[in-house]
Protein backbone atom coordinates (compact mmCIF):
# COMPACT_ATOMS: atom_id res chain seq x y z
CA UNK A 1 0.00 0.00 0.00
CA UNK A 2 1.09 3.52 -0.72
CA UNK A 3 2.57 4.98 2.48
CA UNK A 4 1.26 8.39 1.48
CA UNK A 5 -2.31 7.28 2.18
CA UNK A 6 -1.39 6.48 5.80
CA UNK A 7 -0.78 10.11 6.76
CA UNK A 8 -4.18 11.52 5.79
CA UNK A 9 -5.87 8.56 7.46
CA UNK A 10 -3.91 9.19 10.66
CA UNK A 11 -4.89 12.85 10.37
CA UNK A 12 -8.58 11.97 10.12
CA UNK A 13 -8.11 9.61 13.06
CA UNK A 14 -6.58 12.38 15.18
CA UNK A 15 -9.46 14.66 14.21
CA UNK A 16 -12.00 12.09 15.38
CA UNK A 17 -10.16 11.34 18.64
CA UNK A 18 -9.99 15.07 19.36
CA UNK A 19 -13.67 15.53 18.55
CA UNK A 20 -14.62 12.69 20.89
CA UNK A 21 -12.51 14.09 23.73
CA UNK A 22 -13.79 17.63 23.16
CA UNK A 23 -17.36 16.47 23.65
CA UNK A 24 -16.79 13.91 26.41
CA UNK A 25 -14.15 15.41 28.70
CA UNK A 26 -15.50 17.86 31.28
CA UNK A 27 -12.20 19.47 32.26
CA UNK A 28 -11.42 22.57 30.22
CA UNK A 29 -7.71 21.84 29.84
CA UNK A 30 -8.56 18.47 28.32
CA UNK A 31 -11.08 20.12 25.99
CA UNK A 32 -8.38 22.55 24.93
CA UNK A 33 -5.86 19.77 24.32
CA UNK A 34 -8.54 17.97 22.32
CA UNK A 35 -8.98 21.02 20.09
CA UNK A 36 -5.24 21.13 19.54
CA UNK A 37 -5.14 17.44 18.62
CA UNK A 38 -7.96 18.03 16.14
CA UNK A 39 -5.96 20.91 14.70
CA UNK A 40 -2.87 18.73 14.31
CA UNK A 41 -4.99 16.15 12.52
CA UNK A 42 -6.23 18.75 10.05
CA UNK A 43 -2.70 20.02 9.44
CA UNK A 44 -1.47 16.48 8.85
CA UNK A 45 -4.21 15.95 6.27
CA UNK A 46 -3.34 19.24 4.58
CA UNK A 47 0.39 18.58 4.32
CA UNK A 48 0.16 14.91 3.38
CA UNK A 49 -2.43 15.52 0.67
CA UNK A 50 -0.13 18.21 -0.71
CA UNK A 51 2.63 15.61 -0.88
CA UNK A 52 0.71 12.90 -2.67
CA UNK A 53 1.21 14.48 -6.09
CA UNK A 54 4.11 12.22 -7.00
CA UNK A 55 5.96 14.93 -8.94
CA UNK A 56 9.37 15.93 -7.67
CA UNK A 57 7.96 19.43 -7.21
CA UNK A 58 6.39 19.96 -3.77
CA UNK A 59 3.29 22.11 -3.57
CA UNK A 60 4.12 25.00 -1.23
CA UNK A 61 0.57 26.31 -0.78
CA UNK A 62 -0.54 23.79 1.90
CA UNK A 63 2.60 24.64 3.89
CA UNK A 64 1.65 28.31 3.88
CA UNK A 65 -1.85 27.36 4.97
CA UNK A 66 -0.56 25.25 7.83
CA UNK A 67 1.67 28.04 9.09
CA UNK A 68 -1.36 30.33 9.13
CA UNK A 69 -3.32 27.62 10.88
CA UNK A 70 -0.64 27.13 13.52
CA UNK A 71 -0.56 30.87 14.26
CA UNK A 72 -4.33 30.84 14.70
CA UNK A 73 -4.17 27.74 16.90
CA UNK A 74 -1.55 29.31 19.18
CA UNK A 75 -3.53 32.52 19.65
CA UNK A 76 -6.76 30.64 20.24
CA UNK A 77 -5.08 28.36 22.78
CA UNK A 78 -3.62 31.35 24.60
CA UNK A 79 -7.01 33.06 24.79
CA UNK A 80 -8.73 29.87 25.93
CA UNK A 81 -6.08 29.33 28.62
CA UNK A 82 -6.76 32.82 29.99
CA UNK A 83 -10.49 32.08 30.07
CA UNK A 84 -9.83 28.75 31.78
CA UNK A 85 -7.65 30.30 34.48
CA UNK A 86 -10.22 33.04 35.11
CA UNK A 87 -13.05 30.50 35.32
CA UNK A 88 -11.00 28.37 37.70
CA UNK A 89 -10.25 31.42 39.88
CA UNK A 90 -13.91 32.48 39.99
CA UNK A 91 -15.65 29.14 40.41
CA UNK A 92 -12.97 26.95 41.96
CA UNK A 93 -12.98 24.40 39.14
CA UNK A 94 -12.04 24.55 35.50
CA UNK A 95 -15.25 23.11 34.09
CA UNK A 96 -18.26 24.32 32.18
CA UNK A 97 -20.80 23.05 34.67
CA UNK A 98 -24.51 23.79 34.43
CA UNK A 99 -25.41 27.36 35.31
CA UNK A 100 -28.17 26.06 37.63
CA UNK A 101 -25.77 24.73 40.22
CA UNK A 102 -23.71 27.19 42.21
Amino acid sequence: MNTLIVYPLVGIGLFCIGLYALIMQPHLLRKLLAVNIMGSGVFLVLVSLGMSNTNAQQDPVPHAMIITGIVVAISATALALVFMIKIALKTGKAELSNPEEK
Partner: protein
Amino acid sequence: MEVFLILLPIFGGLLTFLIPKFNKSIGIITLILTLSLVISVASQLLAGGSYYHLLGGWGAPLGINLYVDGLSLVMLGLTALIATGAGIYAGKYFTHKQSLWFWPLWLFLIAGLNALFLSQDIFNFYVTLELIGLASAALTALSDTKEALRGAMRYLLVTLLGSLAYLLGVALLYHGFGSVDIVILSKRIESVPVAWAAMGLMSAGLLLKSALFPLHFWLPPAHASAPAPVSAILSALIIKASIYIQLRLWISLFLPLESFYFEIFFALLGSFAVVWGSVLALVQTRLKLLIAYSTVAQVGYLFIAFSLALGGISVAWSALVYLMLSHALAKSALFLVAGNLLHFHGHDRIVDLDRIAQRLPLSTTAFALAGVSIIGLPLSGGFIGKWFLLEASLKNNSWGITLVILLGGLLAAGYIFKVLGFTFTKAAVAQETKQIPLSMELVPLFFAIMAILLGFFATPMLALIHTGNPFGIIGATP
Protein backbone atom coordinates in the same frame (compact mmCIF):
# COMPACT_ATOMS: atom_id res chain seq x y z
CA MET B 1 -9.81 51.42 -1.67
CA GLU B 2 -11.13 48.05 -0.55
CA VAL B 3 -7.81 47.25 1.09
CA PHE B 4 -8.27 50.21 3.43
CA LEU B 5 -11.56 48.76 4.63
CA ILE B 6 -9.39 46.06 6.21
CA LEU B 7 -6.25 48.04 7.01
CA LEU B 8 -7.89 51.10 8.53
CA PRO B 9 -9.70 49.33 11.42
CA ILE B 10 -6.55 47.30 12.20
CA PHE B 11 -4.47 50.46 12.25
CA GLY B 12 -7.07 52.28 14.34
CA GLY B 13 -7.22 49.32 16.73
CA LEU B 14 -3.45 49.45 17.22
CA LEU B 15 -3.64 53.19 17.85
CA THR B 16 -6.38 52.82 20.47
CA PHE B 17 -4.17 50.25 22.18
CA LEU B 18 -1.07 52.46 22.07
CA ILE B 19 -2.79 55.73 23.01
CA PRO B 20 -5.40 54.59 25.56
CA LYS B 21 -6.06 58.18 26.64
CA PHE B 22 -7.87 59.01 23.40
CA ASN B 23 -9.14 55.51 22.62
CA LYS B 24 -12.78 56.54 22.35
CA SER B 25 -12.22 59.41 19.92
CA ILE B 26 -9.73 57.41 17.81
CA GLY B 27 -12.17 54.49 17.72
CA ILE B 28 -15.16 56.53 16.66
CA ILE B 29 -13.16 58.48 14.06
CA THR B 30 -11.90 55.18 12.61
CA LEU B 31 -15.43 53.81 12.44
CA ILE B 32 -16.76 56.93 10.72
CA LEU B 33 -13.88 56.80 8.21
CA THR B 34 -14.72 53.14 7.56
CA LEU B 35 -18.32 54.12 6.94
CA SER B 36 -17.27 56.74 4.40
CA LEU B 37 -14.96 54.22 2.70
CA VAL B 38 -17.95 51.91 2.30
CA ILE B 39 -19.87 54.76 0.68
CA SER B 40 -17.05 55.36 -1.81
CA VAL B 41 -16.88 51.63 -2.59
CA ALA B 42 -20.64 51.78 -3.14
CA SER B 43 -20.31 54.60 -5.64
CA GLN B 44 -17.61 52.66 -7.49
CA LEU B 45 -19.86 49.59 -7.55
CA LEU B 46 -22.86 51.55 -8.81
CA ALA B 47 -20.78 53.20 -11.51
CA GLY B 48 -19.09 50.11 -12.90
CA GLY B 49 -20.80 46.98 -11.57
CA SER B 50 -19.10 44.23 -9.55
CA TYR B 51 -15.32 44.21 -9.65
CA TYR B 52 -12.19 42.45 -8.40
CA HIS B 53 -9.26 43.95 -6.59
CA LEU B 54 -6.03 41.98 -6.92
CA LEU B 55 -3.98 42.41 -3.74
CA GLY B 56 -0.49 43.62 -4.62
CA GLY B 57 -1.29 43.12 -8.30
CA TRP B 58 -1.07 39.31 -8.05
CA GLY B 59 -3.81 37.33 -9.73
CA ALA B 60 -5.94 34.56 -8.28
CA PRO B 61 -3.96 31.30 -8.34
CA LEU B 62 -1.01 32.89 -6.51
CA GLY B 63 -2.33 36.06 -4.92
CA ILE B 64 -5.52 36.96 -3.12
CA ASN B 65 -8.52 38.50 -4.86
CA LEU B 66 -10.97 40.82 -3.17
CA TYR B 67 -14.40 40.94 -4.76
CA VAL B 68 -17.20 43.49 -4.41
CA ASP B 69 -20.77 42.94 -5.57
CA GLY B 70 -24.18 43.97 -4.26
CA LEU B 71 -24.31 41.30 -1.58
CA SER B 72 -20.89 42.04 -0.14
CA LEU B 73 -21.59 45.77 -0.33
CA VAL B 74 -24.78 45.64 1.75
CA MET B 75 -23.03 43.44 4.33
CA LEU B 76 -20.11 45.91 4.47
CA GLY B 77 -22.53 48.80 4.86
CA LEU B 78 -24.44 46.99 7.59
CA THR B 79 -21.19 46.22 9.43
CA ALA B 80 -19.99 49.82 9.28
CA LEU B 81 -23.37 51.18 10.36
CA ILE B 82 -23.88 48.85 13.31
CA ALA B 83 -20.24 49.08 14.37
CA THR B 84 -20.40 52.88 14.41
CA GLY B 85 -23.73 53.03 16.24
CA ALA B 86 -22.85 50.40 18.80
CA GLY B 87 -19.42 52.01 19.15
CA ILE B 88 -21.00 55.36 20.07
CA TYR B 89 -23.24 53.50 22.51
CA ALA B 90 -20.27 51.65 23.96
CA GLY B 91 -18.45 54.93 24.58
CA LYS B 92 -20.96 55.60 27.37
CA TYR B 93 -21.63 52.00 28.36
CA PHE B 94 -18.22 50.75 29.45
CA THR B 95 -16.15 51.72 32.46
CA HIS B 96 -12.75 53.19 31.71
CA LYS B 97 -10.95 49.91 32.43
CA GLN B 98 -13.22 47.89 30.16
CA SER B 99 -12.93 50.42 27.35
CA LEU B 100 -9.15 49.89 27.30
CA TRP B 101 -9.78 46.36 26.01
CA PHE B 102 -12.98 47.07 24.18
CA TRP B 103 -11.72 49.42 21.48
CA PRO B 104 -8.77 47.41 20.08
CA LEU B 105 -10.87 44.21 20.04
CA TRP B 106 -13.84 45.99 18.51
CA LEU B 107 -11.81 47.45 15.65
CA PHE B 108 -10.05 44.13 15.00
CA LEU B 109 -13.45 42.51 14.86
CA ILE B 110 -14.63 45.06 12.27
CA ALA B 111 -11.46 44.48 10.23
CA GLY B 112 -12.12 40.73 10.31
CA LEU B 113 -15.73 41.17 9.24
CA ASN B 114 -14.81 43.53 6.39
CA ALA B 115 -12.14 41.10 5.21
CA LEU B 116 -14.65 38.26 5.32
CA PHE B 117 -17.23 40.09 3.23
CA LEU B 118 -14.59 41.01 0.64
CA SER B 119 -12.99 37.56 0.40
CA GLN B 120 -13.31 35.39 -2.61
CA ASP B 121 -11.33 32.35 -1.58
CA ILE B 122 -12.19 29.57 0.82
CA PHE B 123 -8.98 29.69 2.82
CA ASN B 124 -9.38 33.43 3.42
CA PHE B 125 -12.83 32.66 4.74
CA TYR B 126 -11.20 30.36 7.30
CA VAL B 127 -8.69 33.00 8.40
CA THR B 128 -11.32 35.73 8.73
CA LEU B 129 -13.66 33.35 10.57
CA GLU B 130 -10.92 32.75 13.12
CA LEU B 131 -10.17 36.48 13.39
CA ILE B 132 -13.76 37.34 14.20
CA GLY B 133 -14.11 34.25 16.41
CA LEU B 134 -11.16 35.21 18.61
CA ALA B 135 -12.11 38.90 18.80
CA SER B 136 -15.74 38.22 19.59
CA ALA B 137 -14.97 35.56 22.21
CA ALA B 138 -12.69 38.02 23.96
CA LEU B 139 -15.37 40.74 23.74
CA THR B 140 -17.98 38.38 25.20
CA ALA B 141 -15.82 37.91 28.28
CA LEU B 142 -15.43 41.67 28.83
CA SER B 143 -17.99 41.96 31.62
CA ASP B 144 -15.81 39.48 33.58
CA THR B 145 -18.61 37.74 35.46
CA LYS B 146 -18.84 34.00 35.99
CA GLU B 147 -21.61 33.60 33.39
CA ALA B 148 -19.82 35.76 30.84
CA LEU B 149 -16.58 33.79 31.17
CA ARG B 150 -18.38 30.47 30.86
CA GLY B 151 -20.36 31.74 27.89
CA ALA B 152 -17.20 33.03 26.23
CA MET B 153 -15.31 29.79 26.84
CA ARG B 154 -18.12 27.69 25.40
CA TYR B 155 -18.40 30.05 22.45
CA LEU B 156 -14.65 29.90 21.82
CA LEU B 157 -14.58 26.08 21.87
CA VAL B 158 -17.59 25.91 19.55
CA THR B 159 -16.15 28.40 17.10
CA LEU B 160 -12.79 26.57 17.08
CA LEU B 161 -14.55 23.28 16.41
CA GLY B 162 -16.54 24.85 13.59
CA SER B 163 -13.43 26.38 12.03
CA LEU B 164 -11.48 23.13 12.19
CA ALA B 165 -14.26 21.20 10.48
CA TYR B 166 -14.36 23.95 7.85
CA LEU B 167 -10.57 23.83 7.42
CA LEU B 168 -10.65 20.07 6.90
CA GLY B 169 -13.18 20.70 4.14
CA VAL B 170 -10.83 23.29 2.62
CA ALA B 171 -7.99 20.75 2.70
CA LEU B 172 -10.12 18.21 0.84
CA LEU B 173 -11.28 20.72 -1.77
CA TYR B 174 -7.72 21.89 -2.35
CA HIS B 175 -6.57 18.31 -2.73
CA GLY B 176 -9.37 17.42 -5.09
CA PHE B 177 -9.44 20.49 -7.30
CA GLY B 178 -6.10 22.23 -6.78
CA SER B 179 -7.22 25.73 -5.83
CA VAL B 180 -8.76 27.75 -3.03
CA ASP B 181 -10.13 30.53 -5.23
CA ILE B 182 -13.90 30.30 -5.53
CA VAL B 183 -14.02 31.28 -9.21
CA ILE B 184 -11.38 28.74 -10.24
CA LEU B 185 -12.94 26.05 -8.04
CA SER B 186 -16.40 26.66 -9.46
CA LYS B 187 -15.11 25.78 -12.94
CA ARG B 188 -13.44 22.58 -11.76
CA ILE B 189 -15.82 21.17 -9.18
CA GLU B 190 -17.65 17.95 -9.98
CA SER B 191 -19.96 15.68 -8.07
CA VAL B 192 -17.31 13.31 -6.74
CA PRO B 193 -16.87 11.88 -3.20
CA VAL B 194 -14.18 14.38 -2.18
CA ALA B 195 -16.49 17.28 -3.02
CA TRP B 196 -19.29 15.67 -1.03
CA ALA B 197 -17.07 15.14 2.01
CA ALA B 198 -15.79 18.70 1.81
CA MET B 199 -19.33 20.05 1.47
CA GLY B 200 -20.44 18.07 4.52
CA LEU B 201 -17.56 19.21 6.70
CA MET B 202 -17.73 22.85 5.66
CA SER B 203 -21.50 23.03 6.03
CA ALA B 204 -21.39 21.34 9.44
CA GLY B 205 -18.79 23.81 10.67
CA LEU B 206 -20.72 26.78 9.34
CA LEU B 207 -24.08 25.57 10.66
CA LEU B 208 -22.50 25.22 14.09
CA LYS B 209 -21.23 28.78 13.86
CA SER B 210 -24.53 30.16 12.63
CA ALA B 211 -26.35 28.40 15.50
CA LEU B 212 -28.96 26.61 13.42
CA PHE B 213 -31.19 24.34 15.51
CA PRO B 214 -30.08 21.86 17.02
CA LEU B 215 -26.59 23.41 17.12
CA HIS B 216 -27.79 26.57 18.88
CA PHE B 217 -26.99 25.43 22.45
CA TRP B 218 -24.02 27.79 22.81
CA LEU B 219 -25.76 30.94 21.57
CA PRO B 220 -28.12 32.01 24.38
CA PRO B 221 -25.55 31.93 27.23
CA ALA B 222 -22.92 33.75 25.15
CA HIS B 223 -25.24 36.38 23.69
CA ALA B 224 -27.10 36.96 26.93
CA SER B 225 -24.07 37.40 29.17
CA ALA B 226 -21.99 39.59 26.86
CA PRO B 227 -22.05 43.39 27.33
CA ALA B 228 -24.91 45.01 25.37
CA PRO B 229 -22.96 46.46 22.39
CA VAL B 230 -21.16 43.13 22.00
CA SER B 231 -24.43 41.16 22.14
CA ALA B 232 -25.75 43.48 19.45
CA ILE B 233 -22.90 42.80 17.05
CA LEU B 234 -22.81 39.06 17.89
CA SER B 235 -26.46 38.64 16.97
CA ALA B 236 -26.50 41.15 14.13
CA LEU B 237 -23.29 40.34 12.27
CA ILE B 238 -21.20 37.43 13.58
CA ILE B 239 -23.99 34.93 13.00
CA LYS B 240 -24.62 36.45 9.58
CA ALA B 241 -20.96 36.17 8.64
CA SER B 242 -21.04 32.37 8.65
CA ILE B 243 -24.40 32.38 6.87
CA TYR B 244 -22.85 34.68 4.25
CA ILE B 245 -20.03 32.17 3.67
CA GLN B 246 -22.60 29.41 3.42
CA LEU B 247 -24.42 31.42 0.74
CA ARG B 248 -21.28 32.14 -1.25
CA LEU B 249 -20.16 28.51 -1.14
CA TRP B 250 -23.51 27.11 -2.20
CA ILE B 251 -24.09 29.65 -4.94
CA SER B 252 -20.76 29.20 -6.64
CA LEU B 253 -19.42 25.80 -5.57
CA PHE B 254 -21.91 23.30 -4.29
CA LEU B 255 -24.84 23.85 -6.65
CA PRO B 256 -23.75 20.88 -8.82
CA LEU B 257 -24.16 18.73 -5.69
CA GLU B 258 -27.59 20.16 -4.91
CA SER B 259 -30.40 17.70 -4.46
CA PHE B 260 -33.92 17.73 -3.14
CA TYR B 261 -32.78 16.22 0.16
CA PHE B 262 -30.78 19.32 1.08
CA GLU B 263 -33.83 21.50 0.60
CA ILE B 264 -35.82 19.24 2.92
CA PHE B 265 -32.94 19.16 5.40
CA PHE B 266 -32.53 22.94 5.62
CA ALA B 267 -36.27 23.57 5.56
CA LEU B 268 -36.87 21.10 8.40
CA LEU B 269 -34.06 22.42 10.59
CA GLY B 270 -35.12 26.00 9.84
CA SER B 271 -38.75 25.29 10.73
CA PHE B 272 -37.77 23.57 13.97
CA ALA B 273 -35.53 26.52 14.79
CA VAL B 274 -38.36 29.01 14.22
CA VAL B 275 -40.81 27.14 16.43
CA TRP B 276 -38.36 26.01 19.11
CA GLY B 277 -36.57 29.37 19.37
CA SER B 278 -39.84 31.33 19.52
CA VAL B 279 -41.39 29.06 22.15
CA LEU B 280 -38.27 29.22 24.31
CA ALA B 281 -38.16 32.99 23.88
CA LEU B 282 -41.74 33.15 25.06
CA VAL B 283 -41.02 31.34 28.32
CA GLN B 284 -37.85 33.24 29.28
CA THR B 285 -37.98 35.41 32.38
CA ARG B 286 -34.89 37.47 31.57
CA LEU B 287 -34.94 40.00 28.78
CA LYS B 288 -31.53 39.31 27.25
CA LEU B 289 -32.17 35.55 27.14
CA LEU B 290 -35.52 36.23 25.46
CA ILE B 291 -33.80 38.30 22.77
CA ALA B 292 -31.09 35.66 22.35
CA TYR B 293 -33.65 32.89 21.78
CA SER B 294 -35.43 35.15 19.32
CA THR B 295 -32.15 35.15 17.35
CA VAL B 296 -32.30 31.33 17.23
CA ALA B 297 -35.78 31.64 15.69
CA GLN B 298 -34.69 34.28 13.18
CA VAL B 299 -31.77 32.12 12.02
CA GLY B 300 -34.44 29.53 11.26
CA TYR B 301 -36.18 31.92 8.83
CA LEU B 302 -32.89 32.53 7.07
CA PHE B 303 -32.41 28.82 6.48
CA ILE B 304 -36.00 28.35 5.34
CA ALA B 305 -35.33 31.06 2.76
CA PHE B 306 -32.06 29.34 1.90
CA SER B 307 -33.76 26.01 1.27
CA LEU B 308 -36.40 27.63 -0.97
CA ALA B 309 -33.67 29.48 -2.86
CA LEU B 310 -31.77 26.24 -3.41
CA GLY B 311 -34.99 24.87 -4.88
CA GLY B 312 -34.72 27.49 -7.62
CA ILE B 313 -37.24 30.04 -6.32
CA SER B 314 -35.25 33.20 -7.04
CA VAL B 315 -37.40 35.53 -4.91
CA ALA B 316 -36.19 33.56 -1.86
CA TRP B 317 -32.72 35.11 -2.29
CA SER B 318 -34.25 38.56 -1.88
CA ALA B 319 -36.16 37.29 1.15
CA LEU B 320 -32.97 35.89 2.66
CA VAL B 321 -30.93 39.08 2.29
CA TYR B 322 -33.80 41.29 3.39
CA LEU B 323 -34.42 39.21 6.49
CA MET B 324 -30.69 39.34 7.29
CA LEU B 325 -30.60 43.13 7.01
CA SER B 326 -33.77 43.87 8.93
CA HIS B 327 -33.00 41.30 11.62
CA ALA B 328 -29.51 42.73 12.08
CA LEU B 329 -30.83 46.27 12.59
CA ALA B 330 -33.81 45.30 14.73
CA LYS B 331 -31.90 42.83 16.87
CA SER B 332 -29.09 45.24 17.62
CA ALA B 333 -31.72 47.80 18.66
CA LEU B 334 -33.34 45.23 20.97
CA PHE B 335 -30.03 44.26 22.59
CA LEU B 336 -29.03 47.89 23.11
CA VAL B 337 -32.41 48.64 24.72
CA ALA B 338 -31.92 45.58 26.93
CA GLY B 339 -28.55 47.04 27.89
CA ASN B 340 -30.29 50.31 28.82
CA LEU B 341 -32.83 48.54 31.00
CA LEU B 342 -30.08 46.48 32.62
CA HIS B 343 -28.18 49.67 33.35
CA PHE B 344 -31.32 51.46 34.54
CA HIS B 345 -32.58 48.77 36.92
CA GLY B 346 -29.43 46.77 37.59
CA HIS B 347 -31.25 43.60 36.43
CA ASP B 348 -33.14 42.40 33.35
CA ARG B 349 -35.99 40.38 34.87
CA ILE B 350 -38.99 41.07 32.66
CA VAL B 351 -41.66 41.00 35.41
CA ASP B 352 -39.76 43.52 37.54
CA LEU B 353 -39.59 46.22 34.86
CA ASP B 354 -40.90 49.34 36.54
CA ARG B 355 -42.91 51.83 34.42
CA ILE B 356 -40.23 51.90 31.73
CA ALA B 357 -42.65 53.32 29.17
CA GLN B 358 -42.98 56.55 31.17
CA ARG B 359 -39.46 56.81 32.46
CA LEU B 360 -37.51 55.74 29.37
CA PRO B 361 -39.91 56.59 26.53
CA LEU B 362 -37.21 56.64 23.84
CA SER B 363 -35.94 53.17 24.73
CA THR B 364 -39.48 51.81 24.84
CA THR B 365 -40.22 53.31 21.44
CA ALA B 366 -37.05 51.75 20.05
CA PHE B 367 -38.03 48.38 21.50
CA ALA B 368 -41.53 48.60 20.05
CA LEU B 369 -40.35 49.65 16.58
CA ALA B 370 -37.67 46.96 16.47
CA GLY B 371 -40.29 44.50 17.68
CA VAL B 372 -42.57 45.50 14.79
CA SER B 373 -39.81 44.54 12.37
CA ILE B 374 -39.02 41.27 14.18
CA ILE B 375 -42.69 40.25 14.14
CA GLY B 376 -42.95 41.34 10.50
CA LEU B 377 -45.84 43.78 10.78
CA PRO B 378 -46.51 45.73 7.58
CA LEU B 379 -44.30 48.61 6.45
CA SER B 380 -41.18 47.34 8.20
CA GLY B 381 -38.04 45.69 6.80
CA GLY B 382 -39.02 42.41 8.45
CA PHE B 383 -42.39 42.56 6.72
CA ILE B 384 -40.83 42.84 3.27
CA GLY B 385 -38.52 39.91 4.03
CA LYS B 386 -41.37 37.74 5.29
CA TRP B 387 -43.58 38.76 2.38
CA PHE B 388 -40.98 37.53 -0.11
CA LEU B 389 -40.54 34.39 1.97
CA LEU B 390 -44.29 33.70 1.95
CA GLU B 391 -44.38 34.36 -1.79
CA ALA B 392 -41.51 31.91 -2.32
CA SER B 393 -43.13 29.23 -0.17
CA LEU B 394 -46.43 29.60 -2.03
CA LYS B 395 -44.66 29.42 -5.38
CA ASN B 396 -43.01 26.21 -4.23
CA ASN B 397 -46.35 24.86 -2.94
CA SER B 398 -44.75 24.28 0.46
CA TRP B 399 -47.77 24.78 2.67
CA GLY B 400 -45.94 23.47 5.72
CA ILE B 401 -43.39 26.25 5.41
CA THR B 402 -46.11 28.86 4.93
CA LEU B 403 -47.70 27.66 8.16
CA VAL B 404 -44.41 27.80 10.06
CA ILE B 405 -43.74 31.37 8.87
CA LEU B 406 -47.17 32.53 10.02
CA LEU B 407 -46.88 30.66 13.33
CA GLY B 408 -43.42 32.15 13.92
CA GLY B 409 -44.86 35.63 13.38
CA LEU B 410 -47.59 35.00 15.97
CA LEU B 411 -45.12 33.64 18.52
CA ALA B 412 -42.81 36.61 17.90
CA ALA B 413 -45.75 38.95 18.55
CA GLY B 414 -46.30 37.00 21.77
CA TYR B 415 -42.82 37.53 23.17
CA ILE B 416 -42.48 41.13 22.02
CA PHE B 417 -45.82 42.15 23.54
CA LYS B 418 -45.03 40.21 26.70
CA VAL B 419 -42.09 42.56 27.27
CA LEU B 420 -43.99 45.67 26.13
CA GLY B 421 -46.84 44.85 28.52
CA PHE B 422 -44.50 44.89 31.50
CA THR B 423 -42.99 48.23 30.49
CA PHE B 424 -46.24 49.98 31.44
CA THR B 425 -46.85 48.37 34.79
CA LYS B 426 -45.43 49.19 38.18
CA ALA B 427 -43.13 46.59 39.67
CA ALA B 428 -44.06 44.92 42.96
CA VAL B 429 -40.83 45.93 44.69
CA ALA B 430 -39.32 49.41 44.74
CA GLN B 431 -35.98 49.58 42.95
CA GLU B 432 -33.08 51.94 42.70
CA THR B 433 -32.54 53.34 39.24
CA LYS B 434 -29.67 54.98 37.41
CA GLN B 435 -29.76 57.70 34.79
CA ILE B 436 -29.25 56.72 31.15
CA PRO B 437 -27.22 59.08 28.94
CA LEU B 438 -29.21 60.39 25.99
CA SER B 439 -26.90 58.91 23.34
CA MET B 440 -27.48 55.42 24.75
CA GLU B 441 -31.19 55.93 24.08
CA LEU B 442 -30.82 57.51 20.66
CA VAL B 443 -28.62 54.81 19.08
CA PRO B 444 -31.12 51.94 19.49
CA LEU B 445 -33.89 54.27 18.36
CA PHE B 446 -31.89 55.05 15.23
CA PHE B 447 -31.37 51.33 14.49
CA ALA B 448 -35.05 50.59 15.04
CA ILE B 449 -36.09 53.43 12.70
CA MET B 450 -33.63 52.11 10.09
CA ALA B 451 -35.20 48.65 10.39
CA ILE B 452 -38.62 50.19 9.73
CA LEU B 453 -37.32 52.40 6.90
CA LEU B 454 -35.94 49.33 5.12
CA GLY B 455 -39.56 48.52 4.41
CA PHE B 456 -40.12 51.85 2.65
CA PHE B 457 -37.08 51.65 0.39
CA ALA B 458 -37.43 48.06 -0.73
CA THR B 459 -37.08 48.71 -4.47
CA PRO B 460 -33.78 50.66 -4.45
CA MET B 461 -32.35 48.35 -1.76
CA LEU B 462 -33.16 45.25 -3.81
CA ALA B 463 -31.64 46.83 -6.91
CA LEU B 464 -28.50 47.48 -4.86
CA ILE B 465 -28.40 43.93 -3.46
CA HIS B 466 -28.72 42.42 -6.91
CA THR B 467 -25.96 44.60 -8.43
CA GLY B 468 -23.44 42.33 -10.11
CA ASN B 469 -25.91 39.43 -9.90
CA PRO B 470 -24.47 37.78 -6.76
CA PHE B 471 -26.98 34.94 -6.82
CA GLY B 472 -26.34 33.86 -10.40
CA ILE B 473 -29.96 34.32 -11.44
CA ILE B 474 -30.81 34.92 -15.07
CA GLY B 475 -32.57 38.28 -15.37
CA ALA B 476 -31.36 39.48 -11.99
CA THR B 477 -33.99 41.91 -10.69
CA PRO B 478 -36.82 40.30 -8.73
